[in-house]
């Protein structure tokens, strides 16, 4: 065998070893991630499982994933005793309207702040950023009094009052416009005869589709999972959102686990459906923002 052939064989062997080594590492990572995702999903699995258990089985040890005596009693009781569909509707309406409002305000403000050069705009942008560092709890009470004065307590509009604008959304869109829409594109449109509204509607918005989709998902889930504001602005059972409604199952001394699980499992349906539809935007949103509330 020639030297060259031997060296080829040796390098093929070492290449093969490296390939096996790489595969082993990949397998370890896969096993770890699989175990980790099982751990993450386990509470959800138990939640759904508990919804079908009797009170006795729920307290039995060790807990079982598949109920031995499955029952729909919890669902029947929840639907009969509470206005659960109404709460789900309130939550969907609140989250959807908040999403639309946040996407609209963020798109307009983000575009203007990114592409129009006025000195005052910088000050406005700094003010908007500053609001991001003020915790909601600080202005929650004054906002409540505003809602009261406007006479919109116990309504979707009352819920929306604190969820119309998201300073982070404005920031996100501003950065996106700056990085993904060159000035020349807008200038070309102006020379071609387009007006400012037309440019925004036909050029800027289509190019921001990805970012706006991500923001829409973030905004929807922000409203969907909000608790404190709906808790103080709604006081009648009919006006509750799902988050507030679910808290009713928890009293000072007991937790009605069966019915809570059934209600939660029912609530999961719209959330999971939306997540599946908008999965790509959601991942993009989390990736581009690096955070999720």
């Amino acid at each position, binding site marked *: 065998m020639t030297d060259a052939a031997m060296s080829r064989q040796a390098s093929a062997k070492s290449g093969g070893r490296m390939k096996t080594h790489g595969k082993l590492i990949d397998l370890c990572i896969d096993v770890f991630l699989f175990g980790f995702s099982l751990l993450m999903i386990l509470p959800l699995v138990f939640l759904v499982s508990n919804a079908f258990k009797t009170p006795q089985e729920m307290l039995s040890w060790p807990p079982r994933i598949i109920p031995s005596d499955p029952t729909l009693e919890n669902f029947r009781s929840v639907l009969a005793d509470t206005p659960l569909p109404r709460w789900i509707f309130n939550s969907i309406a609140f989250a959807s309207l908040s999403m639309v409002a946040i996407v609209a305000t963020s798109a307009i403000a983000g575009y203007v702040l990114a592409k129009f050069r006025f000195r005052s705009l910088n000050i406005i942008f700094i003010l908007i950023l500053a609001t991001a560092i003020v915790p909601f709890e600080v202005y929650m009470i004054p906002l409540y009094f505003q809602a009261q004065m406007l006479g919109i307590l116990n309504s979707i509009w009352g819920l929306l009052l604190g969820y119309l604008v998201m300073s982070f959304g404005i920031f996100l869109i501003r950065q996106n416009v700056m990085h993904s829409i060159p000035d020349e594109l807008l*200038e*070309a449109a102006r020379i071609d005869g387009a007006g400012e509204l037309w440019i925004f509607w036909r050029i800027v918005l289509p*190019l921001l589709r990805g970012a706006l989709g991500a923001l829409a998902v973030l905004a929807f889930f922000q409203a969907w999972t909000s608790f404190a504001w709906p808790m103080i602005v709604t006081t009648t059972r009919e006006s509750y959102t799902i988050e507030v409604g679910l808290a009713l199952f928890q009293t000072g001394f007991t937790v009605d686990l069966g019915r809570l699980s059934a209600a939660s499992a029912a609530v999961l349906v719209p959330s999971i459906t939306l997540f599946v539809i908008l999965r790509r935007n959601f991942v993009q949103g989390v990736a581009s923002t690096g955070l999720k509330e």
Partner: protein
Amino acid sequence: MASVDIQDVRKSYGQLETIKGVSVDVPDGAFVVLVGPSGCGKSTLLRMIAGLEDISGGTISIGGRVINDVEPKHRDIAMVFQNYALYPHMTIAENMGFSLRLARRPKDEVDKRVREVAAILGLADYLDRYPRQLSGGQRQRVAMGRAIVRSPQVFLFDEPLSNLDAKLRVQMRAELKDIHARLKTTTIYVTHDQIEAMTMADRIVVMRDGIVEQVGAPLDLYDRPNNTFVASFIGSPAMNLLDGALCEDMRSVSVGNGMRLPFAGSVPASGRVTYGIRPEHLHLVQGTDGFEAVATSVEPTGSETFIQARIGEQAIAAQIRDRVAVRTGDVIHLRAMADKAHLFDAETGRRLG
């Protein structure tokens, strides 16, 4: 088509004046190139003509109409940008027909016009594609197509070939010339590449630091540059500029080490001057004819040979249209063509003769 008249135009950003009173007359149907180094104000001037920058002073007229305060869309101009500025979410046909659709022209007319222009530019097969599916050269053609479709009075080009590779640039240069010859639309073209300027322009405007250094036909600028800046900017390789003193015979310049470089004609000056000679106007001679120089590098390109050399402390370049047996470090003899030499004032850089 229309002429463009730029009169004493100025542009200031606060205290900083970037365009300092520029006047240029662009005749109807002409191809005028604004050329100059980065930051000279050529793109700003073009953007002022387009209406994308406010005019701080002076007037710009298109077809005899002052357009200082006219919106870009009402100036009847079309602009091609360096980065093409194609709408990424629209097909090529939609990109090209954009302005006509905005003008609410009938759909049939828009389609017909787009197809006509696409045929001229060889884009007929790509009308349903998106910009990202085209090569750089094709995108550039689409950008031109979008401008041509409108049949504007004036075309404005802002370094349109800068993003293309060298081979494609040469091809697109020829295509642009061809299109201009066909359409005869008044064109103002900005570039920092003097080769582009030389090969395409009817008239070149050389700019530096917000002022016009010289305006003229390409070969006029090449043959009679007004100053050392134009002399060194126009032409590649650049003109040799050597510091020297006018000799008493008033027919030659002493450039150190007793070397005398000849020039023809008379000049109303004396003392220190700058002697200019283009590399191709230097000939390699045998024996002790001409002046002596030491070769510092020799670059054969096949058809010609570039020799970098030193005369005393000064560098000089020669472009010899032949293959020569010179090596680095050799002492060579060069002869300057006296009738091709230029003399400039050593202090102001202005042309003397």
